[in-house]
């Protein structure tokens, strides 16, 4: 039913996609292979740089000692809590700032400073406040994700189409109606973008928190590995962390796709 030309076009498109996927796959295989090859030939110091085989050994060891899933779950758990709390709190504060322009103007410079302040610097204070446990880790992650959320969502709220605003005002809409009928729903698509940033920010915050205080989680594994000069453990931790972050990103990405249609 399609013309020959169209079929060629589709095929070209498909081939291009396949090529991209193929290259992505080859790249990682090549990298792993090269790494192992250099390690086997002793061109690199496996004590410092580890090797794919050693990483797999470490994973198996962690699996046998039944620790791996516990650490992964702890990190995911902390990330989810900070993600959800950060999003809700950030959203709420952004709505307040939209509601009260004066408050926004007053707080704007403080938000900017808080945003650019490296939150890790607050680590020692957070430990004293929250103790050496999960509470401190979540506070750390919240500090990062909430402020980013506030700034992004406020930006979306303040960029509402002025003509649509005018239209609502011509119907004598009050502020509550403007918020619920226009501001909130229009910002939704932008807000899903914020979620993508937020999930990464939460993971960053949780890892930083685990570096500082924890006794469990992937961040803890990495720190523990470095303190005992077990670089295999460190690199394994980093790889597990990147897999977690990729998974979480794609879950949010998938939700976004679903919500947009």
């Amino acid at each position, binding site marked *: 039913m399609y013309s020959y030309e169209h079929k060629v076009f589709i095929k070209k498109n498909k081939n291009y996609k396949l090529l991209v996927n193929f290259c992505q796959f080859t790249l990682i295989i090549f990298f792993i292979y090269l790494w192992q090859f250099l390690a086997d030939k002793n061109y690199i110091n496996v004590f410092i740089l580890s090797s794919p085989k050693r990483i797999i050994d470490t994973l198996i060891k962690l699996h046998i000692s039944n620790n791996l899933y516990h650490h992964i779950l702890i990190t995911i758990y902390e990330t989810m809590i900070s993600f959800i709390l950060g999003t809700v709190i950030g959203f709420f504060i952004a709505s307040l700032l939209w509601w009260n322009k004066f408050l926004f103007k007053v707080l704007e410079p403080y938000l900017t400073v808080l945003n650019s302040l490296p939150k890790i610097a607050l680590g020692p204070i957070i430990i004293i406040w929250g103790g050496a446990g999960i509470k401190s880790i979540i506070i750390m992650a919240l500090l990062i994700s909430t402020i980013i959320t506030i700034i992004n969502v406020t930006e979306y709220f303040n960029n509402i*189409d002025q*003509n*649509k605003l*005018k*239209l*609502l*005002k*011509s*119907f*004598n*809409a009050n502020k509550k*109606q403007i918020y619920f*009928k*226009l501001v909130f*729903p*229009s910002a*939704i698509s932008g807000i899903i973008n914020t979620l993508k940033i937020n999930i990464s920010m939460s993971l960053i915050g949780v890892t930083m928190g685990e570096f500082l205080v924890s006794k469990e989680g992937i961040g803890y594994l990495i720190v523990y590995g470095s303190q005992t000069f077990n670089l295999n453990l460190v690199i394994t931790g980093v790889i597990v962390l990147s897999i977690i972050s990729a998974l979480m990103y794609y879950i949010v990405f998938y939700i976004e796709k679903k919500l947009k249609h």
Partner: protein
Amino acid sequence: MKNILSIKNLRKTYHTKNDEIVAVENFSYDFKEGNIIAIVGPSGCGKSTILNIIGNLINKSDGELIFNDDCKIGYMLQEDCLFPFRTIIKNCLLGLEIKKEISSKNINYANQLLKKYGLYDFKNKYPNTLSGGMKQRVALIRTLVCNPNLILLDEPFSAIDYQTRLLLSDDIYKIIKEENKTAILITHNIEEAVALADNIIVLSNRPSKIKNIYTINLFDKSIPSINRRDKNFNYYCDLIWKDIDFNV
């Protein structure tokens, strides 16, 4: 004919940090019920300012606006301003929702208008599936379902193509005349003003003052697309064209 709105000595001054701009000055006019009144003038002369003041979207600086008791204003903007996350019917009912006037009678009226404008099949679709002209028609329905008797039209056709523009101005003309509504039309398009309006107010450069007022007497007054072929049509267009100080 009684006045639906009388404006006396209207003035509007905009204040910015470095400047004070008088947009409208000494504007007085009696808007007669059932008429279509067009306001034309050079761009940036403050036409929209007058409309926004009538629509109570901005405050006047001075002067008087006397509305007829049963005056209900409907505003139609230059852009369709449809909410992308609302279906067509939901968009049409937006004004009613805000005014808390949703009733089965009003919903029926909305459906009726959707049918009349060939949009009924799109009722539950989203605006991105519609063409520009269709969107503008939805915007018109959104204004009409609130049942206003004074309709403010702020360059309602400028964002759509010529063909649709002619069709839509016929539609709007018919509705206004059939239902005995009053309309104030802002436009920079002289032909459109002559084709649609009963009276035309020509404004001067800023600060806007009334430069001239015309009553359009065509030989055979009809719908706008036919008016455009009237013998007197070009005469009025010429007259008004010469009247407007164009800023190039």
